[in-house]
Each structure stands twice: as C-alpha cells, then as structure tokens.
C-alpha cells in the first residue's frame, strides 16, 4: 500500500521535474533550490526536498528488496496486535518509513502507522518477537516510542526489587553497626572492627549501585539541565557519606555511615514507591478508559452479496470511518461511537458514568466507544471514531487537567526550589563552621543538613492530595478538566442551577390525570391519539401509557392541527385532544373540571364533553432534591436561574426543596450572567451548573462551572466548556464533589503545615550538629510518608461514601 503510493509519487515527481519546478520524489513538495538533494534510486537520479526524504527513500528501497523474502513465510504462530505511540514523526513520509521497516520483519504480519494519531498498529507473531524488539526497531530509525505496558510492568518490578534489596541490606548493615554502637570502647578487637566495617561496605555497594540508581540518574539530569532538584542534595549527601566512610576504612580512623546510607535509601525509595503506587491508582481510572477502547473492530463488508451473512474484516479501530457498520460480540468493547442498527443487548458504561449498572440497548440506541457489550452480539453504525469519540474527549480533558498546574502546587514547587538553594548554601556554611570548630563534627553535620532538609514532603503535599481527589471524583463520575477547579470548588458559597435539562430532565413528564368520568380509560385513549404526533406532550403521554403497560387502540381519521391538537376516531367515537378550546370546539358543552392546575395541561374530549385533563410538568432529575439538601448541610447556598415563567420555576424549586426567594425566573442568558456577577461582587464564590453548551456564556461567568454531560449524551462531552463535567446521571454527586474538594484542601493545608514545620525543625537541629545522620534519614523519609498517607486518606473516605450511596439509587 505504502509502496504503491511512493511509486506514484516518484512518477509524479518525474513528470513535474520536466516543468519549471522540481518536486521531491519522496513527499511531492516543491523543492527549494538551496535545500535540494540529489539521490540515486534504482539507477535513476531523483530530486529530494531534504536529506530526510532522501534517506527515507533509500531505506524504503532497501526494505522493499527485503520484503519478498518475508512474505513467503506463512508459519502461523500466535498473532498479537498492539498499538505503539511513536514520537518524533515530522511528516507522513516518516510514517511510511516506519510502516515499511516493520513490515519487512519476518515476524510482523501487518503494520499500519497513523501519522495523525502518531501511533503504530502492529500485528505480529508473539512467539517470534515482542513489543520491546519492535520498539527497538522503531528506535533504530530515530523515533521514540511510548513505554509499552510490558516495559511499564518491568519498570514497576525493578522499583520493587530496588526497595526490597535496600531493606535487606539496611537490616544486615544495621546489625553489624549496632554491635559497634553498644560495645564498650576497645571491647572489639581493631582487626575485627575493621572486618565488620568491610562487611558493611560490601553490603552497601549493591544499594549504592542498584537501589540508589534512580537517585543518581535524576540528580545527574537535574545538574545537566542546570536546575537544582530534590535529588541533588540527596545524591551529594549519599556520595559524601559513602566516600567519607570508605576513606575511614582505609585509614582505619573516623566513623563509617553505611547504616545511615542504607537506611536512607530504603526509606526514601519506600516513600517514592508508595507515591508511585498512589499515583497509579489515581490514574487507574484513565488507564481503564484507555484499555476499554477496543483496538480492532469487525467491520461489516460494505458491498456484501449475502445480506443475511455479509461477513466482516477485522480492522484497526483507527481505520473506522463514519458510516461503517461494525459487529460487536458479547463481552467485546465498542471501538467507536455509534447507533445500534441490529440486535438487542445491554452495555456497561462504567468508564464514563462511574457505575457499572448495565443499560439496555436496542435498535436506534446510541452507544459510546469503550462501552462493553454484555449480552448478545449487536451491529452498530459508526457516528464518531478515533479522536472524535466521547472516550477520546474524556481522556483529553483528564490529561489537560493533569497537565494544568494548580496555583498552590506551583507555589510549593517554587518554594521548594528556593529552599534547595538555602539547603546547599547552609550545608557549605555548616561544613566551614564545624571544620574550624570541631572537625570530627563536620561530615555528620553536613550530611544531616543535606538529607534531613530535603523538601520532599513540601513538594509532595499538594500533588498527592490532588491526584487522590481527582481519582476519587472520577470514579464517581465527576471529571475535573482544570486543576484549579478543585481549589475553587472547595470555596464555593453558592451553587446556581439552570432549570430545564439541569435540575429537571429536558422533556415534559405526565404528572396527573384528572377525570370525572372514571369509567373511561382516558390515558389509553389520549395515548392512542397522541401516537400520531411528535409534540413533547404527545410523547410524554405515549411514554406514560407505555410505562403503565396500556395497549393502545387503533385510531382512525387522525388529523393533527398544528398548534392546537389532534382529532381522530377510536371505535367509531370522535375524540379531540389538545388545548381546552380546541378539545371543546366540537361539543360546545360545559365541563366541570376546574381549569387552574399546576403547569401546562392538555384536554381530552369526546362528543359529550371533556373526558380528562392531563397535567404536565418537569420531572426532577435523580438526586435533584438530595443535592440541594446536602449542599445546604455543607453551608452552601443554592439558587435556581430559569428562563421559564415564575410559576413553572417555583414548582421545580418546591420539588427540589429550594427556597422561593432563591428562584430567579424569566431570565435571559445576560440576566443570568448579571445575577452571577452580582453574587460575586458580594464576595461569594459561585458555581454554575448547566447543561454545558447552550449556556456556555453563563457558565463562563461563574467561578467554577459544572456541566452535566448526561443531559446531552456523550456526543456533547467534547464541546462542553466547563471546569467540571459530571457524567453520573445522579445530581447529588455535585455535593459529594464539594465535600471531597474541601477535604482535599484541608489535607493540603495539613501537609504544608507538617512539611514546613518538619523542615524548619530539622534544619535547625542539623546545622547545630544535634541531628545524627541516621535520625536525619528517618525523619526526612517519615515526613514524606506521612504526607502521602494523609493524602491517601482522601481516597478511602470518598470511596466509602460513594459505595454507601450506590445501593440507594
């Protein structure tokens, strides 16, 4: 495929070369004279626009020669498909190059490199090669690959091995060191003492070389980048202690610090390992969303001769285009967003909604990529694929949130950076002072300063809490799209709700049927007439009838009077359904039903007069009343901003438990903005909850905006401009989110307080020579562990609450 297009381009280039301009034989671009490269290919001299294209063309030619040898090989092993993210591709030619190079490998059955996605899809024989080798091939061409799952697992194991080895060595070194601490002076023979020191040294070497390797590496990178990071003083302290101890052994005088070294490495690595695990857990939600996306799809053949069994091709999900029809077997995931065209089943959308409750789907139902088909095979038609799916949108939002920095985190990082310089300066000062005053004290004091004052806890304080909060919220179906939203949410004083589509479901709902002729089944009659119309009230009647299991009568001579109602005949009797005046027009008779009701009403009449009145209203969303109650319990005011008339807004407000004075009705978008601005001027932090698209300007006015994606379906997720997107259909998670945000901020403050208090105390003690290096190591690592453990608390608390809420829904 790639080869053909290249050949075509070469021909095109040759044709064009006859004209005034030279076109590159590889990419087809016009060659600038000053960067023109002549390359020889298959005995021809061809023009290339740059060295890169010339190189690509040459390599492709070589690869092409190698391909026939590989193609003859048909041994079938275990075929595996994988997607590898490739970085460093600058043009489509790069994608072709990687594709051709991969295909030339004997173990590779198929390769497709998507330049736009920067991703390579490879089908390969798992018995003859693995992802690591394929990545190495891509590396050899000069491109970088994202760490594959296999490599990530290896890295995690390596971390564990490092921590484990450090602990083992620490215990053994400490045993030997303890003997010299507790023994009377001169009680241990000098040569035995020397042997014990040597033994400690031998056991410390693997810790320094293997366990502490990440510390050396990151310290080196920080120095190379001319920025002082956390690991620079740590590495200096470790190296200093090690060298000092080594010299002490050879000179047979002075202290050795192998116990401090091993203990420090063991504790610091443990803290980092725990932090990494917490982060992994925090990102597990996003990872599961990524895994949820099927990499391949069974695309139904378009021009099939056999309509019953058209057959399908297995294609990479990225190749699906709008209009493709795809089979999804039970237990498989949907590879794109689409509409069901055949079959009935149920799906789980746990990745989006935060709950794994199955949802029924049938013909015409919308499904989202990443949902898992639970029961029976279905066929769907693709409406959005690749980067346009809701799943991709959610991933992008979550990544954006992870990348955007919270102001508080920014501040902590800056403080930590300055603090490091203070530490380095102080350690030099300490060394000078003690060298002059008491040389034996100099090394231990400098080491204590370098190690004890590492602002690890300070820089972990905010991120640890933030990621725990984000993960907990995501699991309940609340997505933060901006890091700063958490802080603002914690300070919220007023939560304003839009009415229609936010506090209530968007469509009207049949509230009440009043009749004084109970012998007639008014609902069935009305629904039978209503089936002719797509008016929202007609649909509400149909839904209500269906919900009560009514069997509709066949209606004849149906006539829809736009704006008035429907007339028709059922069982030979004429009926009219619609406005009061319209319904009564045929009879002119009197009616005894009173006319003042709540909300809008529709009337059904027969030839004798009115049969029944149907009252419609808006139905409160699930959790609509709870969210108001829970927010009030948290001391947060609630308000209802509605474009609707006052009575309708008041009905909803009453149902939700809102105070009448908190209701603002008949508001245009600009009125809503002004109202929010007025609230903000009075010093309140305002959150606005809306459906996310039509009310974007109002949402933008609020300090923190919350969009309900469940009101719109997955389609609108990507367009929703909000700081927080609620995917859970239950509104009460908004109150939970406020609670978590407040707790997170409390934890951040506790963490900061602890970190600052500890660092100041340790610094003072270390400089004055009061802090032995062993204690410094313990103190520093413990404060980091404490900060992480404090943040993990958030995780558990919220999770328990969310679990407790679920069965009630």
């Amino acid at each position, binding site marked *: 495929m790639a080869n053909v297009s290249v050949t075509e381009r070469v021909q095109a280039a040759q044709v064009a070369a006859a004209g005034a301009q030279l076109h590159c034989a590889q990419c087809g671009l016009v060659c600038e004279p000053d960067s023109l490269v002549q390359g020889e290919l298959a005995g021809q001299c061809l023009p290339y626009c740059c060295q890169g294209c010339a190189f690509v063309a040459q390599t492709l030619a070589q690869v092409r020669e190698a391909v026939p040898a590989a193609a003859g090989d048909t041994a079938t092993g275990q075929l595996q498909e994988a997607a590898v993210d490739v970085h460093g591709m600058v043009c489509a030619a790069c994608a072709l190059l990687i594709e051709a190079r991969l295909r030339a490998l004997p173990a590779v059955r198929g390769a497709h490199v998507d330049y736009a996605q920067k991703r390579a899809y490879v089908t390969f024989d798992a018995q003859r090669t693995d992802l690591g080798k394929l990545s190495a091939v891509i590396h050899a061409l000069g491109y970088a690959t994202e760490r594959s799952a296999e490599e990530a*697992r*290896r890295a995690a*194991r*390596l971390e*564990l*091995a490092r921590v*484990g*080895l450090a602990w*083992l*060595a620490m215990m*053994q070194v400490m045993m*030997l060191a303890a003997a010299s601490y507790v023994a009377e002076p001169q009680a241990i*023979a000098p040569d*035995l003492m020397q*042997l*014990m020191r040597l*033994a400690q040294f*031998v*056991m410390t070497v*693997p810790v320094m070389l*293997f366990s502490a390797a990440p510390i050396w590496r990151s310290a080196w990178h920080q120095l190379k980048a001319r920025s002082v990071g956390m690991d620079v003083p740590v590495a200096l302290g470790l190296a200093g202690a090690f060298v000092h101890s080594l010299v002490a052994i050879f000179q047979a005088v002075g202290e050795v610090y192998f116990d401090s070294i091993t203990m420090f490495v063991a504790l610091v690595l443990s803290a980092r390992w725990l932090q990494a695990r917490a982060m992994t857990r925090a990102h597990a939600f996003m990872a599961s969303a990524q895994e949820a996306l099927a990499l391949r799809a069974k695309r139904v053949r378009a021009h099939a001769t056999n309509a019953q069994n058209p057959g399908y091709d297995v294609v990479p999900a990225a190749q699906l285009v709008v209009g493709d029809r795809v089979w999804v077997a039970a237990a498989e995931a949907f590879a794109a967003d689409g509409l069901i065209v055949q079959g009935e089943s149920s799906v789980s959308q746990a990745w989006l909604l935060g709950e794994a409750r199955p949802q029924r789907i049938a013909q015409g139902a919308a499904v989202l990529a990443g949902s898992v088909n639970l029961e029976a095979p279905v066929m769907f038609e693709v409406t959005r694929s690749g980067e346009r799916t809701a799943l991709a949108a959610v991933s992008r939002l979550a990544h954006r949130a992870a990348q955007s920095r919270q102001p508080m985190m920014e501040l902590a990082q800056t403080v930590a950076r300055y603090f490091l310089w203070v530490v380095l300066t102080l350690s030099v000062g300490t060394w000078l002072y003690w060298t002059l005053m008491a040389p034996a004290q100099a090394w231990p004091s400098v080491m204590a300063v370098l190690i004890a004052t590492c602002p690890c806890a300070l820089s972990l304080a905010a991120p640890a809490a933030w990621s725990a909060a984000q993960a907990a919220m995501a699991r309940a179906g609340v997505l933060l799209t901006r890091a700063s939203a958490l802080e603002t949410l914690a300070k919220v004083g007023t939560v304003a709700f839009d009415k229609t589509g936010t506090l209530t479901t968007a469509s009207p709902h049949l509230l009440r049927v009043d009749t004084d002729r109970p012998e007639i089944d008014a609902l069935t009659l009305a629904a039978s007439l209503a089936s002719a119309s797509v008016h929202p009230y007609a649909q509400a009647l149909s839904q209500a009838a269906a919900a009560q299991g009514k069997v509709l009568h066949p209606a004849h001579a149906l006539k829809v009077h736009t704006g008035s109602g429907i007339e028709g005949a059922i069982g030979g009797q004429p009926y009219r359904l619609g406005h009061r005046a319209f319904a009564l027009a045929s009879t002119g008779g009197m009616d005894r039903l009173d006319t003042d009701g709540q909300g809008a009403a529709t009337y059904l009449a027969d030839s004798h007069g009115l049969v029944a009145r149907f009252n419609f209203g808006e139905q409160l969303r699930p959790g609509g009343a709870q969210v108001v109650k829970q927010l009030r319990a948290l001391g947060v005011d609630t308000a209802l901003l509605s474009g609707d008339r006052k009575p309708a807004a008041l009905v909803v407000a009453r149902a939700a438990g809102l105070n009448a004075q908190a209701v603002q009705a008949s508001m245009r978008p600009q009125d809503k903005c002004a109202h929010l601005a007025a609230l903000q001027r009075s010093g309140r932090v305002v959150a606005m909850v809306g459906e996310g698209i039509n009310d974007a300007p109002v949402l933008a006015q609020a300090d923190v905006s919350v969009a309900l994606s469940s009101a719109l379906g997955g389609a609108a997720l990507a367009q929703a401009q909000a700081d927080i997107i609620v995917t859970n259909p239950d509104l009460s998670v908004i109150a939970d989110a406020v609670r978590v945000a407040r707790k997170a901020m409390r934890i951040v403050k506790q963490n900061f307080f602890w970190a600052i208090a500890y660092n100041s105390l340790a610094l003072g003690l270390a400089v004055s020579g009061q802090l032995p290096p062993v204690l410094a190591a313990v103190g520093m690592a413990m404060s980091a562990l404490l900060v992480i453990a404090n943040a993990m608390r958030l995780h558990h608390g919220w999770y328990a609450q969310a679990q407790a809420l679920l069965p009630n829904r």
Partner: protein
Amino acid sequence: MESLYWLIPLSVLFVLLMGAVLVWAAMDGQFEALEQEGQRLLGGDGLPNDPDQRDQA
C-alpha cells in the same frame, strides 16, 4: 571469637545471595497479584470440572 572471622564474611555472602534471589523474584513478578493465588486455592479456577462449581450448578 575466632569463628567471627569467617562467620562474618560467610554471612555477607549469604546476604548477597539473598539479595540476588530477592531481585530475581521481584523481576519475575512473584510479588504481583498476591491475592490471586490464594483465591485460586479457595475458590477453584472456575472451570466446569471443578467439583465446587459443579455442585452448585
């Protein structure tokens, strides 16, 4: 006390050996999915020929 002169080097050798075994075990993934093996023992593997599963069916 004389024995310490060869016991200490011996213990160091043992520690290095233990360290190597530990690293090997960690890299082999022996510390992952610790609950899974216990579950396997208790709950069976879910195959149809498992006696527990068959009795329930």
